[in-house]
C-alpha cells in the first residue's frame, strides 16, 4: 500500500516526509474492513489448475481386459437352457462377473451380430 522504496539510511528523513505528504494529500487508500454476514468461515475459492504432467507416470494406459471375448465365456447347455432356446427364443450364457448388462448387450452384438431386444431379466 505504502509507496516503499529500498531506503538508504540517510533517506529515512526524506522518506518520512514523502509519506507524510501522501497522507495529507489523501492518495493512500485505506482498505475498508470487510463485513461478514455469516458466522461460519467458508474456504474461499482459489485458482485450481488442471493437471499438466511433465512426464506421464505410466507409459501407456493398460489394455482393456474386459473385451467381448472375456465377457461371454460360454453358453449354458442344461435342459432348462435348451428349453429357453426353443420356447422363448433366448440364449443363456455364462458371463464374467465384472460385466454389466450394457456391456453384455454390446458384447453379444459384436460377437454374434444379433440384435437383442429389451427383455426382463
Amino acid at each position, binding site marked *: 500500500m505504502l509507496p516503499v522504496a529500498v531506503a538508504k539510511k540517510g533517506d529515512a528523513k526524506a522518506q518520512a516526509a514523502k509519506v507524510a505528504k501522501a497522507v495529507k494529500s489523501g492518495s493512500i487508500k485505506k482498505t475498508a474492513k470487510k463485513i461478514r454476514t455469516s458466522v461460519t468461515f467458508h474456504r474461499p475459492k482459489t485458482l485450481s489448475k488442471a493437471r499438466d504432467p511433465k512426464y506421464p507416470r505410466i507409459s*501407456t494406459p493398460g489394455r482393456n481386459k474386459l473385451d467381448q471375448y472375456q465377457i461371454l465365456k*460360454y453358453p*449354458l447347455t442344461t435342459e432348462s437352457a435348451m428349453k429357453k432356446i426353443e420356447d422363448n427364443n433366448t440364449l443363456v450364457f455364462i458371463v464374467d462377473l465384472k460385466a454389466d448388462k450394457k456391456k453384455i448387450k454390446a458384447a453379444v452384438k459384436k460377437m454374434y451380430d444379433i440384435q437383442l431386444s429389451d427383455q426382463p431379466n
Partner: protein
Amino acid sequence: AAARIKVHELRGKNKADLQGQLKDLKAELSLLRVAKVTGGAPNKLSKIKVVRTSIARVLTVISQKQKSALREAYKNKRLPLDLRPKKTRAIRRRLTKHQLSLKTEREKKREKYFPMRKYAIKA
C-alpha cells in the same frame, strides 16, 4: 491357425497384424469353449491349451514391441516410472556410482601429493 505359432515369426509382424491374429485366436478359443460345454471331440478339447498359450505369446510380443518402441521414444527424456529400472526399492535409493566416487578438492590434492608408496625391502 493350425500350425504351431512361432515367436520369431510373430516378432516380424506389425501391430495391426498381431492384433488381427489375436482376434482370430480369441474367436477360436471361444468356439472351443462352446465345444467343451456341448461335449466336443477330444482333439478339440486338447486344442484349448494350445490356443491359450498362443494367445499368451501374441500378447507378450505385442507388449514387448510396445515397450521397446516407448523406450526409443523416451530416449534422453524423463522416463515414465514403469520404464525406469525396477531392481528393488532399496537399490533405487542408493547413491549412484558417480555420487560415491565424488571427492573433495582437499582429498584429491592429498591423493595427488601423498600417494600410497610402495616399498620393497632388500633381504
